[in-house]
């Protein structure tokens, strides 16, 4: 990106300390962290994500909304004292549901992205390092999977085997390793030819040391950026699944289920069943995308998604 300002202040020789560390000589990670911290949007995104993790996982410890027992005496209440965001058609507390539903959405998002990146890193590293026949087989496999719309396959499997947080994460994770595998493979292929790897090899570094000390840390940037985007995509995918009615099953609900439930009452004007949860999905996904964009800029990986 050409619009990015030069990442380092020009070195002022007159004021540079004599000896010792001068500014620019820092590890790549620290530079990246500094670059990231300078990006205001990224910090906002990170704050939003942290807020939602606390809200969803610690919130239920403080706020005890009824999300388990249906209460027919208090259905579809607008926001009132005791129910800050109203109640659903079964008398569940909407704010409480927002917390537990968020747990499911975030869990699936993070688990799926984690599974995806682990498989992707392994496949990509093997393809890049071994090369030859295995490489072409693995990459054709990636092509095949990338051609099949993920929503279709996930829906078919979810219909047959039912959906749980772990199951959904596994299905989505087994499908989102494709792009990371390609990226890691590309990264490994270029890294393999770089001088510092050759130098390490000449210095007698073992194969394991090469992988652990040089290849993985250098390919990590690509992977981290990809994880954040995958979290966002997985959350959206689970929401779509929930909306279509093939998501998680009661009593586990995710934000998509809640939206799908609230939509039935849209014409009645029960806005509290639709907009808070919709806003949650949009804001969390946006936060992930912001973080991903900023990470990409700061780690300067050749990943184009914008």
């Amino acid at each position: 990106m050409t619009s990015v300002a030069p990442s380092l202040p020009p070195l002022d020789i007159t004021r540079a300390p004599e000896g010792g560390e001068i500014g620019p000589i820092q590890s790549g990670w620290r530079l990246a962290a500094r670059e990231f911290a300078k990006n205001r949007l990224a910090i906002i995104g990170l704050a939003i994500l942290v807020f939602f993790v606390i809200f969803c996982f610690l919130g239920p410890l403080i706020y005890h909304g009824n999300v388990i027992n249906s209460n027919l005496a208090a259905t579809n209440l607008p926001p009132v004292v005791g129910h800050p965001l109203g109640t659903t058609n079964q008398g569940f507390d909407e704010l409480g549901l927002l917390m537990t539903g968020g747990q499911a959405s975030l869990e699936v998002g993070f688990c799926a992205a984690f599974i995806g990146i682990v498989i992707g890193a392994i496949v990509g590293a093997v393809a890049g390092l071994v090369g030859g026949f295995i490489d072409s087989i693995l990459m054709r496999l990636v092509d095949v999977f990338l051609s099949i719309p993920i929503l279709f396959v996930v829906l078919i499997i979810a219909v047959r085997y039912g959906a749980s947080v772990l199951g959904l994460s596994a299905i989505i994770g087994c499908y989102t390793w494709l792009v990371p595998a390609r990226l890691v493979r590309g990264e490994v292929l270029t890294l393999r030819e770089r001088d510092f790897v050759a130098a390490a090899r000449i210095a007698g570094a073992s194969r394991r040391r090469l992988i652990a000390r040089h290849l993985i840390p250098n390919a990590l940037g690509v992977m981290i950026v990809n994880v954040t985007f995958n979290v966002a995509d997985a959350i959206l995918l689970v929401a779509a699944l929930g909306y279509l009615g093939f998501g998680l099953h009661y009593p586990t609900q995710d934000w998509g289920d809640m939206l799908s439930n609230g939509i039935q009452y849209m014409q009645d004007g029960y806005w509290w069943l639709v907009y808070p949860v919709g806003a949650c999905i949009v804001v969390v996904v946006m936060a992930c995308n912001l973080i991903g964009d900023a990470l990409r800029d700061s780690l300067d990986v050749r990943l184009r998604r914008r």
Partner: protein
Amino acid sequence: MTGYLIRRIGASIVVVIGVSIFVFLLLHIIYPSPAIDVLGPRSTPVAIKAWNKAHGFDRPWIVQYWSYIVGVLHGNLGYSYKLNQSVAALFNERWARSAYLSGISLVLAILIAFPVGIYQAVRRNTLGDNIVTSLAFVTYAMPVFFLALILIQVFALSLPIFSFEASQSTNVLYVMGDWHAMTLPVATLTLISVASYSRFMRSTAIDTLAQDYIKAARAKGLPEKLVLWRHLVRNACLPMVTLIGLSIPFLLAGNLITESVFNYQGLGFLFYTSLTSVDYPVLLAYTLVGAILTVVGNLVADIALTVADPRIRLA
């Protein structure tokens, strides 16, 4: 160039074969035989076995795969025992409606996203750019169905301009003319695509603006208008061709959700109803068709790029 094209087509054929094997195995593992659907849930195991033998569902999967492929090549995509109709007939009834919805949305998205992205790149970091970027960012993070619902709430319920349901006509020509009913579904799909295309277009155009040939064009005194039209637009559009090819799976997924939100009788809606009735032959056939469409779309995009970009053509 011929060599490149042959290699590219060969790779696509390999991928299509891989896709068909995967899709068939998926069907074979989760739905080995339609016997239960035909004979009913109270049929005896003996009857099921006899039916399987009579209809060839007890053969090894590779043999069944072969007869499935032969069938597909002859236009036989399977048989829906739930709807008692061949899948090909079901698709034949609906594909035009889906093609119309997806096609017009894609065209509109391209027509909107290209100029918007170029405008943003040229007027980078101005108020206009920031507003469009933020809008695109929010839309990009929005589930398709949520966007559709907001549009319904605003333009069909609060301000009753459009219908909240897509056209129910079976005649595509009538559907095309029914703007009252079709505006919202088309707008939903278009907006979703515009969000991602314009973001991509903006960054490609920014990259292009930094190239030396733009500097050279400006340095030799070419009017800015010509610099933009002759050098920026033509070069920045090239990566978009690839992106559009790659975005077909997302188009199909968006199509599925939009059709089910607006109750539009297309292929996506058929997929959705088949999910509820657990009608695997339809599900698998549409997945296969979607995957083949994706492969063909990528191939067409690559070929178009070869034609458009002399750097590839001459290489």
